[in-house]
């Protein structure tokens, strides 16, 4: 094995490795969507966030517009304070509503934004007023059972 053959093979190897890395970054992970672009942060209080986690997507009309960057518990209002990191390309009115939704029946939870009609746009550091907590399955079920029981009593 002479020198230039070794060089050639090492060159091929390194090129292949870099192409594989590039493939992983572009085709497998989506480097295009990974933007260090400008973003702004807003906060929203929820009575119950259910299973919402940091890095959960924020969607509006089904399009991902940002990510959850922080979930805290507020010791005074006894509510969860969620920090939303939203891409600066997307602007929302001040009276936008935030809901914690679930993708599918048992899927992951995300925040859905529903734009309102206020002419002033929301700014960095603002707090969303209108929020709707996560639907907790246990509550739903117990409510359903309770109603059934009521119905049973009424029909008697």
């Amino acid at each position, binding site marked *: 094995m002479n020198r230039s053959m070794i060089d050639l093979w090492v060159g091929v*190897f390194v090129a292949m*490795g870099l192409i*594989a890395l590039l493939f992983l970054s572009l085709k*497998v*992970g*989506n480097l295009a969507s990974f933007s260090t672009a400008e973003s702004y942060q807003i906060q929203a209080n929820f009575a119950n966030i259910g299973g919402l986690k940091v890095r959960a997507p924020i969607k509006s009309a089904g399009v991902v517009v940002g990510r959850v960057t922080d979930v805290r518990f507020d010791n005074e209002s006894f509510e969860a304070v969620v920090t939303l990191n939203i891409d600066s390309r997307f602007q929302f009115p001040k009276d936008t509503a935030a809901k914690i939704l679930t993708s599918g029946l048992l899927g992951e939870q995300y925040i859905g934004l529903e734009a309102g009609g206020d002419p002033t746009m929301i700014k960095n550091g603002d707090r969303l007023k209108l929020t709707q907590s996560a639907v907790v399955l246990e509550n739903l079920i117990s409510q359903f059972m309770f109603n059934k029981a009521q119905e049973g009593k009424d029909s008697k």
Partner: protein
Amino acid sequence: MNAIRHTLTQLGNAVTRRLTRLGVASRFFIYLLWHSGTAFQRFRLTIREVYFAGVLSLIIILVSGLFVGMVLGLQGYDTLQRYGSSEALGVLVALSLVRELGPVVAGLLFASRAGSAITAEIGLMKATEQISAMEMMAVDPIARVVAPRFWAGVISMPLLAALFSAMGIFGGYLVGVQLIGVDPGAFWSQMQAAVDIRQDVMNGVIKSVVFGIAVTWIAVFEGYDAPPTAEGVSGATTRTVVTGSLAILALDFMLTALMFTGGNAK
């Protein structure tokens, strides 16, 4: 009473011996880093070793990657279709490979293919007095022999792990899309939506770099530390594979705990 005392003495002895060896290995590592200048100034030396550590491991890495990916495709589909979410096959294959299997399996293969070769080569050079001859020629064998091999391993390992993952995803695609008939659009788009560059791809690369450092360090140390006899070299080669593989698994657990518990699981 005597038996307990004997057992405790043996335990203490074993612990002391291992700690001492770890200390020697660490000092060796620092000396190696300190004398790595030659490996970069005369990069040809390192390129030569990249050939032996990296290029010669290519076949086994590519073939294993392909098969691991194909198996993931089959098994993943089998499980996912029960829940009616077979489009998530791409996500499953890509995440398992990029985060775990790529770095870990490529690292294990690297330890047994390249690590053992490095240990055996350095050990034999020592047994045949080539290392002593170099010292007597006023050439530092750690700078001239060990450092290029170490850096070649550190360079090769992430590339091999990336090739393994890429090949595995291709294998999963072959089985999932071409063979079973999962929708290719869903396969790729779900994968792209779920795989995060920093969280998944970058962390996988970091893992493979750490594994590369650990395995090659163990390999060069075992070779350099091997008793200069036939049994000594064969024992050192075995230890490289065993210690190297265990180190990969232990480090993988620690790195995974550090990297993936803070954030969202998906």
